[in-house]
């Protein structure tokens, strides 16, 4: 029966199956802390700490742009200017902080993971690891995914901090809304669940990006060209599934 099933159905199913299998093995390897301990810190620095500057820069700009754009759109004179803060802060916390960070990480981290693992695969380094008796999944994939899950919320917090700060600063300097009014408006509509939702989102995004990239890289085939293809696919698939996860989380939790 499967022979007659068209490839466009079969291939995604096959990919899903292999992805699940990989994750299953990865979860099984989590207790083997000794295998990936050193590698974990390395990945946390590369995925988290080293991503901070680009993430913060992007967040600062998106916060600033949101402020300017909101004040541009709020032309009705009766609306207090504090509403700008009440729109910018939740936007940043609920959506932009996590999604902007996610896109940057999909490009920066996802591509790097896929390229690394792909190259290791095509140069048979992974086979060598296995031959040495190391659990390659535990050694290569677990630290990357765990680093992604742990460090993404950190990046998210940084993005929100800088993004809201950038919005406030540009709003004040640009004469759109004084910082005091901005903060008052934001406080008026602030809900403690919003940042929690953002953290949950960033955990899911961190897992989605790193696991998909690991999957694409780990199963790379066909030399340098295959590595290139895997890298592209990792970045694109990370972005697509990140948006999907974004929607699903919003529907479930909000």
């Amino acid at each position: 029966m499967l022979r007659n099933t068209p490839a466009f159905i079969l291939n995604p199913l096959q990919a899903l199956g292999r992805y699940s299998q990989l994750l299953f093995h990865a979860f099984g390897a989590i207790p083997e802390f000794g295998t990936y301990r050193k590698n974990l810190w390395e990945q946390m620095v590369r995925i988290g700490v080293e991503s901070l500057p680009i993430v913060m820069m992007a967040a600062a700009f998106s916060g600033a742009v949101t402020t300017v754009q909101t004040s541009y759109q709020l032309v009705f004179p009766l609306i207090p200017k504090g509403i700008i803060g009440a729109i910018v802060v939740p936007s940043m916390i609920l959506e932009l902080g996590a999604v902007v960070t996610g896109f940057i990480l999909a490009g920066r981290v996802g591509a790097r993971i896929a390229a690394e693992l792909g190259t290791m695969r095509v140069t048979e380094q992974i086979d060598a690891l296995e031959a040495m008796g190391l659990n390659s999944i535990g050694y290569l994939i677990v630290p990357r995914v765990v680093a992604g899950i742990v460090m993404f919320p950190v990046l998210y917090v940084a993005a929100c901090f800088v993004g809201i700060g950038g919005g406030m600063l540009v709003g004040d300097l640009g004469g759109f809304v004084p910082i005091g009014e901005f903060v008052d408006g934001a406080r008026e509509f602030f809900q403690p669940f919003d940042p929690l939702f953002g953290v949950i989102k960033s955990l899911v995004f961190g897992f989605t990006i790193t696991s998909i990239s690991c999957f694409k890289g780990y199963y790379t085939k066909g030399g340098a060209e295959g590595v290139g293809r895997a890298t592209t696919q990792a970045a694109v698939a990370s972005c697509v599934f990140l948006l999907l996860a974004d929607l699903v989380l919003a529907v479930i939790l909000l």
Partner: protein
Amino acid sequence: MKYSNEIKVGVTIILATVVFILGVRYFEDLPLFNSTYGLTAEFDNAGGLIAGNIVRVNGVAVGSVNAVYISEESGKVIVDFHVDKNIPVTEGSEAVVAGFDALGVVRLELKLGDPNVPRIPEGGLVSGLNPGDLIGQMTERAPEMMDGADRVLGQLEGVLAEANTMLASPESDFRQTLRAVQGSVDEVETLLSEERERISDILGNVDRLTADLDTAAGEDGEAVTALMDRLNTMMTTLDADLESYSATNEQLQEILRKLNDGDGTLGMLINDPSMYHRLDSTLTGINALVADFQNNPEKYLKEMKLVDLF
């Protein structure tokens, strides 16, 4: 100096955690480093209050609402909130939900009690004043009110349109009536101004009469009663008389009808012109005779001689 990866990661995570907690506290309008203490208030109606709304004392933000939920036992609204530890929320303090639900800007206002009494303990109950949620009530009742206003306005419009038409047409009864009324009023006015003295005299007389009557009635109640009895009898008699008069009148009418129709001798006399003509011709004859007598008296006096003879 080269830091190990562990230190870099640890510092980053700790910094992020601190920023996260302080950031949330900042936007929850809590003091960043001061500790807070939790309180509870009970309301019949939360008026749109939600978790995260600001708690204010005299217009100053001092904390925020943690949770708003319905008590399972009493069915009342329970509001958990926390305020800055330095705020003396003493016994007798009151909480009230303020602000405009429609604009989404709702706050919990705390009215502090006497500063000399002990503070409400951590987690204690602040008595909740139930707000006259005026705007909310108005918003709820607005559609009804609008419908009513709409109906009334529609009717008013119809009435006004009709009145307009009536007023516009000079032939309309309304206008004529108004004119007539105006005329009457003018006349009455003239009359009043002309006859002021007399009216005042009349009124004076009426006054006196009433007074006299009063006195009479008071002094001589029996006599008045007797008088009234006699008047009554008289009225009865008069009534009977009027009845017979009425009968007489009918008979008279009958006679007159007959006269008119020429029935009976009198009728013929009145209605037959031949009698008149005869009388007329007789009178003409008598006239001619008299004229002739004047002109030729001798002709008749010859006969008078016979009289002379006597």
